């Protein structure tokens, strides 16, 4: 360590205290056990699980992923073993890590499913927070909850009544105004916002003239979407005062810093986990070094500190 400061990387998301702001994004990290040989999981600020539904979901027709320019499309379709299997088979390993576990949940048919899932998770001490996935583009629905401010407000209000645990709303970028949706979340009592989920996208095999994904379309992630995500974080940060967990194409320290400077209290590392499983751990070290190099004692003093060009 460089002489002088030993910077504090700890951040607070609602009631949740993280030892550092780096978490791994839902759907890109399985249930963490898949990465156990490759990285020291205990170093992570938090782990967000793959989204869980009440019943087991088989997911969409393959092919489910395709590479695009500096990114990828996926149409997994929320394949998961269902809440009971998750609690029995996946949660014990997550609990053993001793770091905050954020469980991502979604409804298949009706918003009431969120209430059933929250009631079940509320009883489990080791579940530190619940992420409401109201923005998955792979459910073949006309409209996502997070594309409607009123529906979002109602869902989060109902959820808020059921648990004291930290509630995080995950938002879709496929909207006219993400700030409007973010405001509905904040008014309804959401502790934090996670943004952005994937952008709706499509890719075509021109030889065969077929879509490259079995589900025709999917969600775009990876470095390709980062500028869009940074802008959305900046927009929301300037309008809403609850903490933001920023994500969308974070691959290294520099890209994580963009999100923090734009107003993210924490960051989520996603698609890069497939490419460089060490990325999240490297970012934790890189953020610390950045604070040392810039003589900043506390990471909180960097959040949203974007300057005007003329400064």
């Amino acid at each position, binding site marked *: 360590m460089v002489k002088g400061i030993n910077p504090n990387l700890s951040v607070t998301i609602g009631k949740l205290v993280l030892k550092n702001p780096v978490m791994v994004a839902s759907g890109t990290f*399985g249930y963490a056990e898949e990465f156990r040989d490759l990285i020291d999981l205990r170093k992570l600020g938090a782990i967000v699980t793959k989204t869980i539904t009440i019943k087991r979901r*088989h997911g969409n027709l*393959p092919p*489910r992923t*395709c590479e695009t320019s500096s990114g*990828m499309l996926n149409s997994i379709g929320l394949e998961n073993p269902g809440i009971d299997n998750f609690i029995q088979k996946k949660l014990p390993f997550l609990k053993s890590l001793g770091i905050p576990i954020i469980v991502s949940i979604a409804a298949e048919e009706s918003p009431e499913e969120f209430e059933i899932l929250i009631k079940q998770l509320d009883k489990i001490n080791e579940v530190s927070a619940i992420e409401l996935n109201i923005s998955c583009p792979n459910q073949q629905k006309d409209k996502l909850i997070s594309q409607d401010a009123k529906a979002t407000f109602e869902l989060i209000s109902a959820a808020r009544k059921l648990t004291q645990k930290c509630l995080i709303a995950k938002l879709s970028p496929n909207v006219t105004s993400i700030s409007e949706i973010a405001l509905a979340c904040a008014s309804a009592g959401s502790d934090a916002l996670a943004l952005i989920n994937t952008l709706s996208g499509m890719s075509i095999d021109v030889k065969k003239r077929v879509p490259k994904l079995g589900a025709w379309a999917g969600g775009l992630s990876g470095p390709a979407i980062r500028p869009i995500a940074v802008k959305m974080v900046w927009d929301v940060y300037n309008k809403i005062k609850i903490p933001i967990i920023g994500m969308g194409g974070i691959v290294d320290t520099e890209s994580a810093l963009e999100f923090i400077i734009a107003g993210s209290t924490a960051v989520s590392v996603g698609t890069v*986990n497939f490419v460089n*499983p060490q990325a999240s751990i490297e970012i934790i070290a890189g953020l610390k070094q950045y604070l040392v190099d810039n003589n900043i004692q506390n990471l909180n003093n960097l959040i949203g500190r974007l300057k005007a060009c003329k400064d």
Partner: protein
Amino acid sequence: MKIVQVKAKIISNKKLSGHYWHLEFVSGEIAKSALPGQFVDLRVINGFEPLLRRPISIHGVSGDKVKIIYEVLGKGTQILSTKKGGQALDVIGPLGNGFAYKPTLKSGGAKNILIAGGIGVAPLVFLAEKIKTVKPLILIGARTKGQILCTQEFKALGCKVELATDDGSAGLKGRVTDLLKNVLEQVKPSRLFSCGPHPMLKTVSQIALENKIKAQLSLEEHMACGIGACLGCVVLTKSGYQRVCKDGPVFSNEELIW
């Protein structure tokens, strides 16, 4: 078995013929634990275009060296072909389940038959090496003679090799699955092992079912994570979708739903 991520030193990277290349790198950890049918996941560039790793079958190991054969098909494998001996390669492995095989067969008993299509020969050489006592019969198919790989390696292992080409430039004119049908009229094998294009595997699977022979099929899929986390590379089986990268890439023909 532990998965490792290593910066492996490339020993050599040579063109075999056409679009086929042979690469050798050093990783004692991977070499020690690798099983026939498993694969490694390679990051061909330090940047993010192309974004994803490239999964490639393990062709063999010797000492602390790991060998792969790959086909230059797109941007990722094109970049891989520019790598030189001495350079470092970011490798995750060994991944996947590998073939379920008996390392020693009863002397004088039924043989295994290994059926390869194109680049599908790569993992079968590793398998042929591991099956002792009764060496397997090898059937290789390709479009043309120049695309037939590894025949000398199989022969050096003491295996009999039969060929089929679409244009008849080597061996039987026709499909390797036609060759398999011919062979099965005379030989009752212990088990079939196959790796190659999807339509070929489907036919091998049908032939195996008709002849009541067990078959182990190694599938190829585009992958995102390669370690079972993203659920992208799934294939439909009797027990629902299974991950080619983690539950496979080798499946028994009875499990798969085509």
